[in-house]
Protein backbone atom coordinates (compact mmCIF):
# COMPACT_ATOMS: atom_id res chain seq x y z
CA UNK A 1 0.00 0.00 0.00
CA UNK A 2 1.24 3.46 -0.83
CA UNK A 3 2.72 5.35 2.11
CA UNK A 4 0.86 8.42 0.98
CA UNK A 5 -2.52 6.96 1.90
CA UNK A 6 -3.38 7.98 5.45
CA UNK A 7 -6.50 8.50 7.57
CA UNK A 8 -8.35 11.79 7.85
CA UNK A 9 -7.24 12.12 11.46
CA UNK A 10 -3.59 11.52 10.53
CA UNK A 11 -3.82 14.07 7.72
CA UNK A 12 -5.29 16.74 9.99
CA UNK A 13 -2.54 16.12 12.54
CA UNK A 14 0.00 17.23 9.91
CA UNK A 15 -1.37 20.79 10.04
CA UNK A 16 0.32 22.91 12.72
CA UNK A 17 -1.36 25.93 14.28
CA UNK A 18 -0.61 29.17 12.35
CA UNK A 19 -0.26 27.23 9.09
CA UNK A 20 -0.88 29.02 5.80
CA UNK A 21 -3.58 27.10 4.00
CA UNK A 22 -5.54 27.03 0.72
CA UNK A 23 -8.68 24.92 0.36
CA UNK A 24 -9.97 23.65 -2.97
CA UNK A 25 -13.42 24.23 -4.43
CA UNK A 26 -15.55 27.25 -5.24
CA UNK A 27 -18.52 28.67 -3.24
CA UNK A 28 -20.88 25.65 -3.13
CA UNK A 29 -18.65 23.09 -4.85
CA UNK A 30 -16.03 20.51 -3.94
CA UNK A 31 -14.61 21.92 -0.70
CA UNK A 32 -12.73 19.40 1.48
CA UNK A 33 -15.43 19.70 4.16
CA UNK A 34 -14.67 16.47 6.03
CA UNK A 35 -11.12 17.80 6.48
CA UNK A 36 -12.49 21.18 7.58
CA UNK A 37 -14.74 19.59 10.23
CA UNK A 38 -11.86 17.45 11.48
CA UNK A 39 -9.65 20.57 11.78
CA UNK A 40 -12.38 22.17 13.93
CA UNK A 41 -12.64 19.05 16.12
CA UNK A 42 -8.84 19.17 16.50
CA UNK A 43 -9.04 22.84 17.58
CA UNK A 44 -6.61 24.24 15.02
CA UNK A 45 -5.81 27.87 15.77
CA UNK A 46 -4.40 31.00 14.05
CA UNK A 47 -4.71 29.64 10.51
CA UNK A 48 -3.98 31.98 7.60
CA UNK A 49 -6.43 31.13 4.80
CA UNK A 50 -6.19 32.06 1.13
CA UNK A 51 -8.77 31.62 -1.62
CA UNK A 52 -10.56 33.41 -4.44
CA UNK A 53 -14.18 32.47 -3.71
CA UNK A 54 -14.55 30.12 -0.78
CA UNK A 55 -17.93 29.48 0.80
CA UNK A 56 -19.03 27.73 3.96
CA UNK A 57 -15.62 26.06 4.32
CA UNK A 58 -13.99 29.35 5.34
CA UNK A 59 -17.11 30.52 7.14
CA UNK A 60 -17.35 27.62 9.57
CA UNK A 61 -13.57 27.69 10.25
CA UNK A 62 -13.79 31.41 11.02
CA UNK A 63 -16.83 30.92 13.25
CA UNK A 64 -15.15 28.07 15.11
CA UNK A 65 -12.23 30.34 16.02
CA UNK A 66 -9.61 28.55 13.91
CA UNK A 67 -8.63 31.55 11.79
CA UNK A 68 -6.37 34.55 12.37
CA UNK A 69 -6.13 35.97 8.85
CA UNK A 70 -7.80 35.65 5.44
CA UNK A 71 -6.81 36.85 1.98
CA UNK A 72 -9.74 36.45 -0.40
CA UNK A 73 -12.06 37.92 -3.00
CA UNK A 74 -15.44 36.64 -1.80
CA UNK A 75 -16.91 34.37 0.81
CA UNK A 76 -20.49 33.18 0.43
CA UNK A 77 -22.65 30.37 -0.89
CA UNK A 78 -23.91 32.49 -3.82
CA UNK A 79 -27.66 32.10 -4.41
CA UNK A 80 -28.07 30.10 -1.17
CA UNK A 81 -26.74 32.95 0.96
CA UNK A 82 -25.00 36.00 -0.43
CA UNK A 83 -22.70 36.61 2.54
CA UNK A 84 -20.96 34.27 4.94
CA UNK A 85 -22.44 35.30 8.30
CA UNK A 86 -19.40 34.33 10.35
CA UNK A 87 -17.00 36.21 8.06
CA UNK A 88 -19.29 39.24 8.28
CA UNK A 89 -19.34 39.16 12.05
CA UNK A 90 -15.61 38.48 12.40
CA UNK A 91 -14.77 41.48 10.20
CA UNK A 92 -17.36 43.81 11.75
CA UNK A 93 -16.03 42.96 15.23
CA UNK A 94 -12.38 42.98 14.10
CA UNK A 95 -11.91 39.42 15.28
CA UNK A 96 -9.80 38.47 12.26
CA UNK A 97 -7.45 40.32 9.92
CA UNK A 98 -8.45 40.42 6.27
CA UNK A 99 -7.16 41.52 2.88
CA UNK A 100 -9.40 42.01 -0.17
CA UNK A 101 -8.39 41.09 -3.70
CA UNK A 102 -10.49 40.20 -6.75
CA UNK A 103 -11.01 36.62 -7.95
CA UNK A 104 -8.61 37.13 -10.84
CA UNK A 105 -6.11 38.78 -8.50
CA UNK A 106 -6.15 35.79 -6.16
CA UNK A 107 -5.89 33.28 -9.01
CA UNK A 108 -2.90 35.12 -10.47
CA UNK A 109 -1.21 35.15 -7.09
CA UNK A 110 -1.62 31.37 -6.84
CA UNK A 111 -0.42 31.02 -10.43
CA UNK A 112 2.74 33.02 -9.67
CA UNK A 113 3.34 30.71 -6.71
CA UNK A 114 2.81 27.64 -8.86
CA UNK A 115 5.27 28.98 -11.46
CA UNK A 116 7.99 29.67 -8.90
CA UNK A 117 7.77 33.43 -9.56
CA UNK A 118 7.60 36.21 -6.95
CA UNK A 119 4.74 38.01 -8.76
CA UNK A 120 2.69 38.25 -11.95
CA UNK A 121 1.53 41.37 -13.82
CA UNK A 122 -2.09 42.14 -14.66
CA UNK A 123 -4.49 44.82 -15.90
CA UNK A 124 -7.21 44.12 -13.35
CA UNK A 125 -8.17 45.91 -10.09
CA UNK A 126 -7.20 49.41 -11.35
CA UNK A 127 -9.63 52.10 -10.20
CA UNK A 128 -10.83 49.92 -7.35
CA UNK A 129 -10.33 50.64 -3.66
CA UNK A 130 -8.67 47.23 -3.46
CA UNK A 131 -5.63 49.33 -4.51
CA UNK A 132 -6.19 52.20 -2.03
CA UNK A 133 -7.27 50.38 1.13
CA UNK A 134 -5.15 47.79 2.89
CA UNK A 135 -6.50 45.37 5.43
CA UNK A 136 -3.26 44.15 6.98
CA UNK A 137 -1.31 46.50 9.16
CA UNK A 138 2.01 47.62 7.58
CA UNK A 139 3.89 46.34 10.67
CA UNK A 140 2.42 42.87 10.13
CA UNK A 141 3.70 42.90 6.55
CA UNK A 142 7.18 44.04 7.61
CA UNK A 143 7.55 41.66 10.54
CA UNK A 144 5.97 38.51 9.15
CA UNK A 145 8.13 37.12 6.35
CA UNK A 146 5.36 34.71 5.33
CA UNK A 147 3.16 37.64 4.25
CA UNK A 148 4.03 39.63 1.11
CA UNK A 149 5.91 42.83 1.96
CA UNK A 150 3.42 44.86 -0.12
CA UNK A 151 -0.23 44.13 -0.92
CA UNK A 152 0.54 45.04 -4.56
CA UNK A 153 2.93 47.11 -6.62
CA UNK A 154 2.19 49.36 -9.59
CA UNK A 155 4.91 49.92 -12.18
CA UNK A 156 5.43 51.21 -15.69
CA UNK A 157 5.68 48.37 -18.17
CA UNK A 158 9.30 48.33 -19.48
CA UNK A 159 8.07 47.39 -22.98
CA UNK A 160 4.92 49.49 -23.51
CA UNK A 161 5.20 52.31 -20.93
CA UNK A 162 1.69 51.58 -19.69
CA UNK A 163 0.78 51.22 -16.05
CA UNK A 164 0.78 47.60 -14.89
CA UNK A 165 -0.17 45.98 -11.60
CA UNK A 166 2.07 43.38 -9.97
CA UNK A 167 0.52 40.95 -7.50
CA UNK A 168 2.62 38.94 -5.05
CA UNK A 169 2.80 35.14 -5.24
CA UNK A 170 1.10 32.84 -2.75
CA UNK A 171 2.90 29.69 -1.61
CA UNK A 172 0.91 28.08 1.18
CA UNK A 173 2.23 25.46 3.60
CA UNK A 174 -0.63 23.11 2.77
CA UNK A 175 -3.18 22.99 0.00
CA UNK A 176 -6.05 20.65 0.81
CA UNK A 177 -8.39 19.80 -2.02
CA UNK A 178 -11.17 17.31 -2.59
CA UNK A 179 -11.00 15.43 -5.88
CA UNK A 180 -13.14 12.71 -7.42
CA UNK A 181 -10.29 10.25 -8.06
CA UNK A 182 -6.70 9.87 -6.93
CA UNK A 183 -4.30 7.16 -8.02
CA UNK A 184 -2.47 5.19 -5.34
CA UNK A 185 0.73 7.12 -6.05
CA UNK A 186 -1.05 10.49 -6.06
CA UNK A 187 -2.09 11.32 -9.63
CA UNK A 188 -5.14 13.58 -9.32
CA UNK A 189 -8.24 13.44 -11.54
CA UNK A 190 -10.76 16.24 -11.14
CA UNK A 191 -13.98 16.05 -13.12
CA UNK A 192 -15.76 19.23 -14.16
CA UNK A 193 -14.57 22.73 -13.52
CA UNK A 194 -11.30 22.84 -11.61
CA UNK A 195 -11.80 26.38 -10.17
CA UNK A 196 -8.38 27.45 -8.80
CA UNK A 197 -7.51 24.02 -7.40
CA UNK A 198 -4.59 23.32 -9.71
CA UNK A 199 -2.76 26.62 -9.17
CA UNK A 200 -3.44 26.50 -5.42
CA UNK A 201 -2.04 23.00 -5.19
CA UNK A 202 0.99 23.45 -7.45
CA UNK A 203 2.09 26.52 -5.48
CA UNK A 204 1.81 24.74 -2.13
CA UNK A 205 4.72 23.27 -0.19
CA UNK A 206 2.60 20.21 0.59
CA UNK A 207 -0.55 18.86 -1.00
CA UNK A 208 -3.20 16.80 0.78
CA UNK A 209 -5.90 15.37 -1.45
CA UNK A 210 -9.10 14.00 0.03
CA UNK A 211 -11.09 12.05 -2.51
CA UNK A 212 -14.17 10.05 -3.35
CA UNK A 213 -12.14 7.12 -4.68
CA UNK A 214 -8.58 5.88 -4.58
CA UNK A 215 -7.95 3.93 -7.78
CA UNK A 216 -5.08 2.09 -9.47
CA UNK A 217 -2.63 4.51 -11.09
CA UNK A 218 -3.01 2.56 -14.33
CA UNK A 219 -6.66 3.49 -14.57
CA UNK A 220 -5.83 7.21 -14.52
CA UNK A 221 -2.78 6.79 -16.75
CA UNK A 222 -4.88 5.42 -19.58
CA UNK A 223 -6.02 9.02 -20.18
CA UNK A 224 -3.26 11.19 -18.73
CA UNK A 225 -4.59 14.28 -20.48
CA UNK A 226 -7.54 14.14 -18.10
CA UNK A 227 -5.33 14.31 -14.98
CA UNK A 228 -4.38 17.62 -13.42
CA UNK A 229 -1.74 17.11 -10.75
CA UNK A 230 1.25 14.77 -11.21
CA UNK A 231 1.70 12.10 -8.54
CA UNK A 232 5.10 13.35 -7.33
CA UNK A 233 3.62 16.61 -6.03
CA UNK A 234 0.98 14.96 -3.85
CA UNK A 235 2.10 14.22 -0.28
CA UNK A 236 -0.94 12.63 1.32
CA UNK A 237 -4.08 10.93 0.06
CA UNK A 238 -7.20 10.41 2.16
CA UNK A 239 -10.26 8.50 1.00
CA UNK A 240 -13.41 10.28 2.24
CA UNK A 241 -16.56 9.43 0.29
CA UNK A 242 -19.04 12.34 0.42
CA UNK A 243 -16.17 14.38 1.82
CA UNK A 244 -17.47 17.61 0.24
CA UNK A 245 -20.96 17.44 1.77
CA UNK A 246 -23.00 19.70 2.02
CA UNK A 247 -21.32 20.94 -1.16
CA UNK A 248 -21.38 19.28 -4.54
CA UNK A 249 -18.91 16.97 -6.23
CA UNK A 250 -19.50 16.85 -9.98
CA UNK A 251 -20.65 13.46 -11.30
CA UNK A 252 -20.80 12.04 -7.76
CA UNK A 253 -23.35 14.06 -5.79
CA UNK A 254 -25.13 17.39 -5.74
CA UNK A 255 -25.08 20.04 -3.04
CA UNK A 256 -27.53 19.59 -0.17
CA UNK A 257 -29.87 22.63 -0.15
CA UNK A 258 -31.46 21.58 3.16
CA UNK A 259 -28.16 21.37 5.01
CA UNK A 260 -26.72 24.53 3.43
CA UNK A 261 -29.88 26.48 4.32
CA UNK A 262 -29.83 25.12 7.86
CA UNK A 263 -26.22 26.25 8.25
CA UNK A 264 -26.99 29.77 7.08
CA UNK A 265 -30.08 30.04 9.23
CA UNK A 266 -28.11 28.99 12.29
CA UNK A 267 -24.92 30.93 11.48
CA UNK A 268 -26.75 34.27 11.64
CA UNK A 269 -26.55 34.31 15.44
CA UNK A 270 -23.75 33.32 17.82
CA UNK A 271 -26.07 30.94 19.68
CA UNK A 272 -27.37 29.35 16.49
CA UNK A 273 -23.88 28.88 15.13
CA UNK A 274 -22.77 27.21 18.36
CA UNK A 275 -25.77 24.88 18.17
CA UNK A 276 -24.87 23.92 14.60
CA UNK A 277 -21.26 23.29 15.56
CA UNK A 278 -22.25 21.26 18.62
CA UNK A 279 -24.64 19.13 16.63
CA UNK A 280 -22.84 18.55 13.33
CA UNK A 281 -19.14 18.92 14.18
CA UNK A 282 -18.39 18.38 17.87
CA UNK A 283 -21.38 16.11 18.35
CA UNK A 284 -19.99 13.49 15.95
CA UNK A 285 -16.71 11.59 16.21
CA UNK A 286 -15.88 11.32 12.55
CA UNK A 287 -17.17 11.72 9.02
CA UNK A 288 -19.11 8.46 9.13
CA UNK A 289 -21.09 9.69 12.12
CA UNK A 290 -21.53 13.05 10.42
CA UNK A 291 -23.12 11.37 7.41
CA UNK A 292 -25.51 9.50 9.72
CA UNK A 293 -26.33 12.79 11.45
CA UNK A 294 -27.27 14.62 8.25
CA UNK A 295 -29.74 11.90 7.26
CA UNK A 296 -27.65 8.85 6.41
CA UNK A 297 -28.28 6.73 3.39
CA UNK A 298 -31.74 8.19 2.79
CA UNK A 299 -30.34 11.72 2.40
CA UNK A 300 -27.30 10.60 0.39
CA UNK A 301 -29.52 8.72 -2.06
CA UNK A 302 -31.38 11.94 -2.85
CA UNK A 303 -28.11 13.70 -3.68
CA UNK A 304 -26.49 11.07 -5.94
CA UNK A 305 -25.77 12.64 -9.33
CA UNK A 306 -27.49 11.67 -12.56
CA UNK A 307 -24.67 9.91 -14.50
CA UNK A 308 -25.32 11.88 -17.67
CA UNK A 309 -25.82 15.33 -16.17
CA UNK A 310 -23.44 15.09 -13.23
CA UNK A 311 -26.01 16.57 -10.85
CA UNK A 312 -29.53 15.78 -9.56
CA UNK A 313 -31.96 16.73 -12.28
CA UNK A 314 -34.95 17.97 -10.34
CA UNK A 315 -33.26 18.84 -7.08
CA UNK A 316 -35.33 21.30 -5.08
CA UNK A 317 -32.92 24.18 -4.61
CA UNK A 318 -35.25 26.89 -3.34
CA UNK A 319 -36.67 25.80 0.01
Amino acid at each position, binding site marked *: MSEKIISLQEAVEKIPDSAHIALGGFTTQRHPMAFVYEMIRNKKRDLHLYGPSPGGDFDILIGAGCVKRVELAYEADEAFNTIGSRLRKAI*EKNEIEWEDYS*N*FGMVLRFTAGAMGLPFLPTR*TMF*GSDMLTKEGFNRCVRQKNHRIASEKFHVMECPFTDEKILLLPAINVDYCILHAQKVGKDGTVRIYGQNYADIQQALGAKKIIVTCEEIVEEDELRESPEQNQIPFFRVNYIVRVPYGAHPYSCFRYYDYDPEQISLYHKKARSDEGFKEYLDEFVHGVKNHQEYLEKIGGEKKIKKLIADPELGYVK*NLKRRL
Partner: protein
Amino acid sequence: MEKKYTKDYTLTELMAVAAAREIHDKEIVFVGTGLPMLGAMLAQNTHAPNLVIIFQAGTTDSRLANLPMSVGDARVMRQASTAAGLFEIFATVLQAGHVDVGFLSGAQIDKFGNINATSIGDYHNPTVRLTGSGGSGDIACLAKRTVIIARHEKRRFPEKVDYITSPGWIDGPEGREKAGLHWGGPSAIVTTMGILRFEDKTKEPYLASYHPGVKIQWIKENTEFKLDTSKAVETEKPTEEEIQILQNIVDPERIFIG
Protein backbone atom coordinates in the same frame (compact mmCIF):
# COMPACT_ATOMS: atom_id res chain seq x y z
CA MET B 1 -44.41 40.45 -36.74
CA GLU B 2 -46.08 42.98 -34.46
CA LYS B 3 -45.05 42.81 -30.82
CA LYS B 4 -47.80 41.75 -28.44
CA TYR B 5 -47.15 43.49 -25.14
CA THR B 6 -48.48 42.12 -21.91
CA LYS B 7 -49.50 43.65 -18.59
CA ASP B 8 -49.15 40.36 -16.84
CA TYR B 9 -45.60 40.26 -15.41
CA THR B 10 -43.69 40.66 -12.16
CA LEU B 11 -41.01 43.25 -11.43
CA THR B 12 -38.32 40.56 -11.62
CA GLU B 13 -39.60 39.50 -15.04
CA LEU B 14 -39.65 43.10 -16.26
CA MET B 15 -36.04 43.56 -15.10
CA ALA B 16 -34.96 40.31 -16.72
CA VAL B 17 -36.51 41.48 -19.99
CA ALA B 18 -34.77 44.86 -19.67
CA ALA B 19 -31.45 43.08 -19.00
CA ALA B 20 -31.96 40.84 -22.04
CA ARG B 21 -32.49 43.88 -24.26
CA GLU B 22 -29.06 45.24 -23.25
CA ILE B 23 -27.45 42.24 -24.97
CA HIS B 24 -26.86 41.92 -28.72
CA ASP B 25 -26.57 38.80 -30.83
CA LYS B 26 -23.14 37.16 -31.17
CA GLU B 27 -21.81 38.87 -28.08
CA ILE B 28 -19.80 37.18 -25.36
CA VAL B 29 -21.50 37.83 -22.05
CA PHE B 30 -20.13 37.27 -18.55
CA VAL B 31 -22.91 36.51 -16.07
CA GLY B 32 -23.40 35.67 -12.42
CA THR B 33 -26.27 33.85 -10.73
CA GLY B 34 -29.77 35.31 -10.52
CA LEU B 35 -31.24 38.06 -12.67
CA PRO B 36 -28.34 38.45 -15.15
CA MET B 37 -28.61 34.76 -15.94
CA LEU B 38 -32.34 35.12 -16.63
CA GLY B 39 -31.62 38.09 -18.90
CA ALA B 40 -28.84 36.35 -20.81
CA MET B 41 -30.85 33.17 -21.32
CA LEU B 42 -33.91 35.12 -22.39
CA ALA B 43 -31.80 37.03 -24.94
CA GLN B 44 -30.40 33.72 -26.19
CA ASN B 45 -33.93 32.42 -26.69
CA THR B 46 -35.16 35.55 -28.49
CA HIS B 47 -33.08 38.13 -30.37
CA ALA B 48 -29.59 36.79 -29.59
CA PRO B 49 -29.46 33.08 -30.53
CA ASN B 50 -25.68 33.21 -31.04
CA LEU B 51 -24.94 34.71 -27.66
CA VAL B 52 -22.06 33.06 -25.79
CA ILE B 53 -22.50 32.82 -22.01
CA ILE B 54 -19.35 32.64 -19.89
CA PHE B 55 -19.23 31.58 -16.23
CA GLN B 56 -16.21 32.71 -14.23
CA ALA B 57 -15.68 29.40 -12.46
CA GLY B 58 -14.51 27.92 -15.74
CA THR B 59 -17.01 27.23 -18.56
CA THR B 60 -17.73 28.77 -21.94
CA ASP B 61 -21.03 28.52 -23.84
CA SER B 62 -22.96 26.29 -21.45
CA ARG B 63 -26.34 25.04 -22.65
CA LEU B 64 -28.28 25.16 -19.42
CA ALA B 65 -31.13 22.75 -18.81
CA ASN B 66 -31.50 23.71 -15.13
CA LEU B 67 -30.59 27.06 -13.60
CA PRO B 68 -27.46 27.01 -11.45
CA MET B 69 -27.30 28.38 -7.89
CA SER B 70 -23.60 29.10 -8.37
CA VAL B 71 -21.38 29.99 -11.31
CA GLY B 72 -19.37 26.92 -10.32
CA ASP B 73 -22.46 24.72 -10.26
CA ALA B 74 -22.45 21.32 -12.00
CA ARG B 75 -25.42 22.64 -13.99
CA VAL B 76 -23.15 24.95 -16.02
CA MET B 77 -21.19 21.95 -17.31
CA ARG B 78 -24.02 20.85 -19.57
CA GLN B 79 -22.87 20.83 -23.20
CA ALA B 80 -20.37 23.61 -22.59
CA SER B 81 -17.80 24.29 -25.29
CA THR B 82 -14.92 24.22 -22.79
CA ALA B 83 -14.59 23.66 -19.06
CA ALA B 84 -11.46 24.52 -17.10
CA GLY B 85 -10.96 26.92 -14.19
CA LEU B 86 -10.94 30.56 -13.14
CA PHE B 87 -7.51 31.20 -14.68
CA GLU B 88 -8.61 30.33 -18.21
CA ILE B 89 -11.70 32.55 -17.99
CA PHE B 90 -10.18 35.58 -16.26
CA ALA B 91 -6.78 35.61 -17.96
CA THR B 92 -7.45 34.40 -21.50
CA VAL B 93 -11.07 35.40 -22.04
CA LEU B 94 -11.69 38.49 -19.87
CA GLN B 95 -8.28 40.19 -19.59
CA ALA B 96 -7.42 39.36 -23.19
CA GLY B 97 -10.40 41.51 -24.18
CA HIS B 98 -12.95 39.00 -25.43
CA VAL B 99 -15.88 39.80 -23.14
CA ASP B 100 -18.39 42.21 -24.71
CA VAL B 101 -20.69 42.70 -21.77
CA GLY B 102 -20.58 41.82 -18.09
CA PHE B 103 -23.32 42.07 -15.49
CA LEU B 104 -22.69 43.58 -12.06
CA SER B 105 -24.54 44.38 -8.87
CA GLY B 106 -23.79 45.64 -5.39
CA ALA B 107 -25.07 47.34 -2.26
CA GLN B 108 -24.27 50.92 -3.33
CA ILE B 109 -23.98 52.51 -6.77
CA ASP B 110 -22.91 56.13 -7.24
CA LYS B 111 -23.47 58.70 -9.99
CA PHE B 112 -20.54 57.45 -12.08
CA GLY B 113 -21.64 53.84 -11.82
CA ASN B 114 -18.99 52.83 -9.28
CA ILE B 115 -20.17 49.90 -7.19
CA ASN B 116 -19.59 48.96 -3.58
CA ALA B 117 -19.88 45.26 -2.77
CA THR B 118 -17.27 45.23 0.02
CA SER B 119 -18.23 47.25 3.10
CA ILE B 120 -20.46 50.06 4.37
CA GLY B 121 -18.78 52.70 6.52
CA ASP B 122 -15.07 52.74 7.36
CA TYR B 123 -13.24 49.88 5.63
CA HIS B 124 -11.33 48.92 8.77
CA ASN B 125 -14.35 49.21 11.09
CA PRO B 126 -17.32 48.60 8.81
CA THR B 127 -20.89 49.00 10.02
CA VAL B 128 -21.82 46.31 7.51
CA ARG B 129 -19.38 43.93 5.87
CA LEU B 130 -20.51 42.69 2.46
CA THR B 131 -19.31 39.74 0.48
CA GLY B 132 -16.43 41.35 -1.44
CA SER B 133 -15.43 41.60 -5.09
CA GLY B 134 -15.47 38.01 -6.22
CA GLY B 135 -15.10 38.40 -9.98
CA SER B 136 -17.09 41.63 -10.18
CA GLY B 137 -14.09 43.94 -9.75
CA ASP B 138 -12.41 42.12 -12.63
CA ILE B 139 -15.48 42.31 -14.86
CA ALA B 140 -15.85 46.04 -14.13
CA CYS B 141 -12.21 46.60 -15.15
CA LEU B 142 -11.98 44.37 -18.19
CA ALA B 143 -15.34 43.79 -19.94
CA LYS B 144 -15.94 46.06 -22.94
CA ARG B 145 -19.08 47.35 -21.22
CA THR B 146 -21.07 46.52 -18.12
CA VAL B 147 -24.74 46.51 -17.17
CA ILE B 148 -25.58 47.04 -13.50
CA ILE B 149 -28.64 45.52 -11.81
CA ALA B 150 -29.85 47.27 -8.66
CA ARG B 151 -32.66 47.75 -6.18
CA HIS B 152 -33.61 51.42 -6.37
CA GLU B 153 -33.42 52.87 -2.86
CA LYS B 154 -31.96 56.19 -1.72
CA ARG B 155 -29.32 54.62 0.53
CA ARG B 156 -28.21 52.43 -2.36
CA PHE B 157 -27.74 55.38 -4.75
CA PRO B 158 -25.39 57.79 -2.90
CA GLU B 159 -23.35 60.61 -4.45
CA LYS B 160 -20.21 58.57 -3.71
CA VAL B 161 -19.90 54.94 -2.65
CA ASP B 162 -18.10 54.14 0.62
CA TYR B 163 -15.72 51.78 -1.22
CA ILE B 164 -15.20 51.20 -4.93
CA THR B 165 -15.22 47.44 -5.44
CA SER B 166 -16.08 47.63 -9.13
CA PRO B 167 -14.98 50.81 -10.92
CA GLY B 168 -17.50 52.51 -13.20
CA TRP B 169 -16.54 55.83 -14.79
CA ILE B 170 -14.68 56.52 -11.49
CA ASP B 171 -14.76 60.37 -11.36
CA GLY B 172 -15.78 61.33 -14.88
CA PRO B 173 -14.87 60.97 -18.56
CA GLU B 174 -11.11 60.50 -18.05
CA GLY B 175 -11.45 58.49 -14.85
CA ARG B 176 -10.80 55.07 -16.27
CA GLU B 177 -7.86 56.00 -18.50
CA LYS B 178 -6.18 57.85 -15.61
CA ALA B 179 -6.61 54.80 -13.39
CA GLY B 180 -4.98 52.51 -15.96
CA LEU B 181 -8.09 51.04 -17.60
CA HIS B 182 -7.99 51.31 -21.39
CA TRP B 183 -11.49 50.15 -22.24
CA GLY B 184 -14.87 49.36 -20.71
CA GLY B 185 -17.26 51.16 -18.39
CA PRO B 186 -20.94 50.93 -17.42
CA SER B 187 -23.53 51.48 -20.14
CA ALA B 188 -26.75 51.07 -18.14
CA ILE B 189 -28.16 50.57 -14.67
CA VAL B 190 -31.35 48.51 -14.70
CA THR B 191 -33.11 49.23 -11.40
CA THR B 192 -36.37 48.23 -9.75
CA MET B 193 -37.79 51.62 -10.88
CA GLY B 194 -36.22 52.40 -14.26
CA ILE B 195 -33.12 52.40 -16.44
CA LEU B 196 -30.26 54.89 -16.03
CA ARG B 197 -27.64 55.58 -18.67
CA PHE B 198 -24.57 57.85 -18.93
CA GLU B 199 -23.98 60.88 -21.19
CA ASP B 200 -21.36 60.06 -23.82
CA LYS B 201 -19.12 63.07 -23.13
CA THR B 202 -19.58 63.88 -19.45
CA LYS B 203 -20.44 60.39 -18.12
CA GLU B 204 -23.13 62.10 -16.04
CA PRO B 205 -26.06 59.78 -15.35
CA TYR B 206 -29.54 60.35 -16.73
CA LEU B 207 -32.85 58.57 -16.46
CA ALA B 208 -33.48 56.85 -19.78
CA SER B 209 -36.76 55.22 -18.79
CA TYR B 210 -39.10 54.64 -15.87
CA HIS B 211 -40.92 51.34 -15.45
CA PRO B 212 -44.67 51.24 -16.14
CA GLY B 213 -46.54 52.52 -13.08
CA VAL B 214 -43.50 54.31 -11.60
CA LYS B 215 -43.54 58.10 -11.30
CA ILE B 216 -40.37 60.06 -12.15
CA GLN B 217 -40.75 61.88 -8.84
CA TRP B 218 -40.39 58.57 -6.95
CA ILE B 219 -37.14 57.86 -8.76
CA LYS B 220 -35.78 61.32 -7.87
CA GLU B 221 -36.75 60.77 -4.25
CA ASN B 222 -34.96 57.45 -4.22
CA THR B 223 -31.72 58.72 -5.75
CA GLU B 224 -29.27 60.73 -3.65
CA PHE B 225 -27.34 62.12 -6.62
CA LYS B 226 -28.76 64.58 -9.14
CA LEU B 227 -30.42 62.81 -12.03
CA ASP B 228 -31.41 64.41 -15.34
CA THR B 229 -34.90 63.08 -16.04
CA SER B 230 -35.71 65.25 -19.07
CA LYS B 231 -35.19 62.45 -21.59
CA ALA B 232 -37.05 59.73 -19.73
CA VAL B 233 -39.70 57.66 -21.46
CA GLU B 234 -41.65 54.67 -20.22
CA THR B 235 -39.66 51.38 -20.20
CA GLU B 236 -40.78 49.14 -23.06
CA LYS B 237 -43.13 46.55 -21.58
CA PRO B 238 -42.37 42.84 -21.85
CA THR B 239 -44.02 40.98 -24.69
CA GLU B 240 -46.20 37.91 -24.21
CA GLU B 241 -43.48 35.88 -25.92
CA GLU B 242 -40.75 37.10 -23.57
CA ILE B 243 -42.75 36.27 -20.45
CA GLN B 244 -43.74 32.89 -21.85
CA ILE B 245 -40.07 32.05 -22.57
CA LEU B 246 -38.95 33.24 -19.13
CA GLN B 247 -41.55 31.13 -17.37
CA ASN B 248 -41.49 28.01 -19.52
CA ILE B 249 -37.99 27.76 -20.94
CA VAL B 250 -35.57 29.84 -18.87
CA ASP B 251 -36.84 29.24 -15.34
CA PRO B 252 -39.61 26.63 -15.28
CA GLU B 253 -38.52 25.58 -11.79
CA ARG B 254 -39.04 29.20 -10.66
CA ILE B 255 -35.67 29.40 -8.97
CA PHE B 256 -35.18 33.10 -9.58
CA ILE B 257 -38.46 34.45 -11.00
CA GLY B 258 -40.23 33.27 -7.85
